[in-house]
Each structure stands twice: as C-alpha cells, then as structure tokens.
C-alpha cells in the first residue's frame, strides 16, 4: 500500500480574474464568509445577468390569503400574484435557477414586489439574496422548453411545449406543463403593480438569540434601457386552458397552504439582461429577548426527539 498526495496551487490569484483573498485586501472589501475563501466575493459586484429567462405564471388569489403573507408594515396592492421561474445561465453569482412567488405591495407609499416564498438551486445565489431579505431555500428546480423539429442541423420553428418542476425534501412542490399558444394575454397584467422594484423582509438574529432585527430591504426599480433590457422578440404567452397545474403543500414548504390560487390567468415568458441596483433598508424594528424569553420562545425542539420535519431523503448536494 502507498500514500498518495496531490496538492495544487494552480489557481494562483496574483493575476487573472479571481480576486486575491479578502484577508490580503483592504478590510473594507470583505463582505461575507469564509473570511479567506468567501462563498461569493467582490467579483460578483455589481450583480448582473445576461440573457436570463423568466417564466411568469399570473394567478388570482384571495385578498386575505395574500395579506397574511405580508409583514405588518406592508399593504397589498393587487390580488394578482406571480409564480415565477427564472433561469440565469450567465450571472455574476454563477449559473442558477430560481422559483418564487411575488405579490404586489407597498410600504409608506413605496411600491414594490414582495416575495414571501423563493427557492434557488445554488449556494452563492442563496446567500447573496438572503442577505437582501429573500427567503431563499435550496431546491431541485427544472425548466424545460422543447418541441421544435430539429432537421438538417436547423431548428424548425420554436419550442412550443414547456414543463417546470420544483421538489424539496422528497415532495413535489409545484409542476406545470403546457403549450405556448402566443395568444396575447392582457399585457397590462404583466405590469400589475409588481414593478421590478423589490422589497423583502430580512430577519437576522445574533448568536446568543438575545436580539432580532427586522428590516424591510428595498431594491429600487431597475432603469429600463439602462440597467434592464427586455428582449421583446422573446416574449411568449400561454393561456390558462393550455396549462396543467399541480401545487402541493408539504410539511417543509407551505406555499400552497398559505397562498392557494383561485384562478390561473396565464403564463408569459421573456429574456432580459439586468444590472441590479443597491438595496436599502426602508423600515426596521428590533425584538429583544430575555433569557427566559429564549427558553420560552426559541426552544421548541426536544433534545434527541425528532419530529416528522427531521425526516426526509438524505440530500447529496449539488
């Protein structure tokens, strides 16, 4: 028997596109952990996307159900809700796919899309957007468009059929299949108040659980033509009657429980480039806990006893 060892320093960061490690730079350029080998770094800033594709299912839901998903500082603007998938093949956080639900809301006169549920396939994107208050979880997400006739090395026509799915911890959360009909939806419904401005509630707790800070993090509208470019020739639509839909509440993910839909309006898909602007906090509050509070409110688990949410197929990672 022998012992083999390979240690590589191939990716010397003294030149090329990889930044030197944060501990060797000005301390002001350190943004996340690990301190010497961060999950994402300054080479992700500004965060841009090229030729990303978004699929927006537009639905109607009960006003009371949507309001329950909003923090107390927000008011609801519309009962139209967007359930979306986004495929980012070129992004400063690396390629990833997202899924989420966004509703139209406002806070003290500022309008935005608020995302109570969101999922992503990759860790850097999850961490970056959780920093901005998105409630990202990691899930298995697939988007598929197909149906073109491939002949003589040329695509004949367009991909007319689609299939989307998201699973997590052994449960299917959502799937939709169907056909693009390109019968124009009411495009006004695209602009149902969910502007590209975003706000999300970030809740961060210190390590001893004595304090929690709630922040409504607002990211302004991306400027059309400057920091946002919609490829109009890529817009495709599908009518509700051309879509099959399954939406499932699970012990781990309660989207379908808290936000069931009354009616599917249709789906629109499009490609775009975007450069995201800096976010800012527009509302905040602090919640303090005494030692008794921590024991009373934060210790729901019983040591060495595991409930049904502690059991699911082991995940082998990305």
């Amino acid at each position: 028997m022998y012992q083999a060892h390979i240690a590589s320093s191939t990716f010397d960061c003294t030149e090329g596109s990889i930044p030197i490690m944060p501990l060797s730079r000005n301390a002001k350029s350190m943004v996340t952990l690990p301190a010497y080998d961060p999950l994402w770094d300054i080479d992700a800033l500004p965060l841009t996307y090229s030729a990303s594709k978004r699929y927006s299912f537009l639905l109607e839901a009960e006003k009371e159900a949507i309001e329950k998903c909003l923090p107390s500082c927000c008011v609801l603007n519309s009962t139209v809700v967007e359930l979306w998938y986004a495929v980012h093949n070129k992004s400063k956080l690396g390629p990833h796919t997202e899924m989420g639900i966004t509703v139209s809301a406002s806070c003290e006169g500022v309008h935005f899309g608020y995302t109570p549920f969101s999922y992503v396939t990759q860790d850097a994107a999850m961490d970056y957007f959780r920093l901005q208050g998105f409630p990202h979880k990691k899930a298995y997400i697939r988007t598929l468009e197909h149906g073109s006739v491939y002949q003589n090395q040329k695509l004949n026509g367009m991909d007319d059929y689609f299939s989307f799915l998201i699973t997590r911890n052994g449960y299917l959360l959502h799937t939709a299949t169907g056909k693009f009909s390109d019968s124009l939806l009411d495009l006004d419904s695209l602009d149902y108040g969910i502007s590209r401005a975003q706000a999300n509630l970030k809740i961060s707790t210190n390590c001893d659980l004595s304090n929690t800070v709630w922040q409504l993090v607002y990211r302004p509208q991306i400027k059309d033509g400057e920091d946002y470019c919609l490829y109009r020739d890529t817009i495709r639509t599908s009518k509700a009657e051309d879509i099959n839909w399954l939406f499932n509440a699970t012990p781990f993910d309660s989207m379908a429980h808290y936000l069931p839909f009354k009616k599917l309006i249709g789906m629109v898909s499009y490609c775009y480039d975007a450069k995201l602007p800096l976010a800012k906090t527009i509302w905040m509050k602090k919640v303090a806990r005494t030692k008794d509070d921590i024991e009373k409110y934060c210790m729901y688990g019983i040591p060495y006893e595991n409930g049904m949410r502690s059991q699911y197929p082991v995940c082998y990672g990305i």
Partner: protein
Amino acid sequence: MGFFIQNTSIVNDGTIVPAPLDRDEKSIITHGLIDPVQDIDRRPLTFVNSRKTMFLYEADEKKLRQILPEPLKLEDDLVEFTYMNHITSNTGPYLEAMIAIAASCEGTKGAFYTNLYVPESAALCAGREFNGTPKKSAHISMLEHGQAEGIRYKEGGNPGRRFFSFMIERNGYIIHSATGEYTSHQMSDLPRLPLYQGNPDWCRLSYRVMTEPDFQSTKVEVISTGSAKNMFAVKPDTIDVAVGKDIHTWALLATPGDALGRYLAPKEQKLVGVVSNTFNMYYPPSQNCIWTKTIHRTPEEVEALYNTSDPYTYTLRHSFPSPAGA
C-alpha cells in the same frame, strides 16, 4: 383545458411547529416570515448516531496564519479534516465536511473552523447566519465498507467498515478525496491528536461576517461555542483508526471557487492518520460573541465596492455546471 390541482393541507403528525406568522414575534428568528428555511423546532440541535471521520495532518504554519483573520492566533500546526454523516438530527439527515485548526482569540482557545461544506440549505443557513460557520454547499460522499474479518455480509449483519472512501465535489471540481483502510481501534496509535481533542478548556470558534443589505457596514464577530467535551458523547466501541501509511490515496485540490487546497495542504505530503467514531451530540442553543468589530463604508466606498467588476463580464468563477439543486 388543462388540469388545475392544488393540495393545500399540510400532513402533520403533531410535531410540526406552527408557522412564524401564527406565533409570538419573539419566537421568530429568521426569514421568511411565513415559511423559514430553519426554525425553532431545531433548537436545541441534537444528533444521534452521527458518524465522524477525522483526517489529521500537519500543515505549513505560515500558510495557516495567512488564513486566520484578526484577532485569531494560531495555536498548533495540526489540521483536522473531518467528514460527518448526521443520520438522525432534528434538522434532518445530512452530510458535512469541515476543516478545523487550533486557534485562540484573546485568551479563549478553540477549534477554529476555516471551511465547512453541507449539501442542503437548512444547515447551511443556520451555520452562516447564526453561528458564523463558513458553510458552502457541496456534493459530499462518505463510504465505509468491508468486513474486518473478511466475512461476507449476511442478512441482519453489519456490512462492516474496514475500508473507506470520502469525497467532496463543488462546481464541477473535486475538492478532496481520500481512500484507505482502518487498521486499529486505538487512538493512542496516532502520534498526535488536536490540542482540543477531549480538552474541556477548549471550545469551538467561528468568524461571523454579516454585511448590511446596503453594504454601508459589515459586522465581524468571533463566536465561541461551549466546550466540546460537554457536546459530544462518543461511543467507544465504534472507534476505528488508520495511521498515515494506511491512507491509500489523498487528493486535496485548489479550485477557482475553493482555495483550501492552496492554504491547507499537508506538510511534506505526510498524514498523521485518521480516526472515526460514532457519537451523539448536543449543540448549545446559543453561543457567545467574544470579539467584534464593525467595518463602516462611506457612500463613495460603497459605490466603489459595488462597482468592483465590469458589468455583464463573466469570468472564470462565474462559469460552472449549472446545479439542478437538491
């Protein structure tokens, strides 16, 4: 006409914690407000029959000091490269890989975690956002098999754990792989163990970095978790040991996304050995911040930071196989 099916009820055996929005706000510790990635039902965090495999080796002290942030001081040149298989925990089953070195912070000594990898999001967020454990997501594989006595596996019998194979892969690169054979059950067969191993005066140390959404400030904290001795209950009859020569293959690779191969390579291509054991663990519900610093940025500095790279220009680290998620 397509079908439109919605199952809105959540199956519940009575153990599911109510959603945060239906509880007292003092019980809400993370976002999302309605459906958080991890919640109070995982506190205090406990593990039953977790399996741990700890590779030990000496590394270049100069390189180790390079990756220790202020104010941490290096206490030893021994590196612990550990895999864990958490079969049953109240955060669910998951695998974990971690690298620790002995360090101290203003008199508090502990195992400082330089890198951690987990496959799933609840453990990743809990570690990064609460404890400052520097977790990334990766594909991790742990395998132990083969009967020590050479007996074929029989129904109901133990499949054995004579040989081992471990691996971490992330973003299309293998970060680490090791294979070998256990040859002993005595930890005393190893020439060295980490200073913190079984020492009640040592704790766990981590370095939390939390940046505000507007990038105007970054708060840095050194966090200590109670003595490891109070956390672990090792099952002595599960200890397996291999000395350095019994580790058949070992590969630790630097990649564009993960630099540990560059800074944490074994010195003189030698390994001390490996120890595996099965244990129960109680993870303290809260930790202590023992050092903190806030980095403030002016609007001009924020502008410069946020525009570090060229928009719409994608480089080596922005391209890797698109993960399907997990």
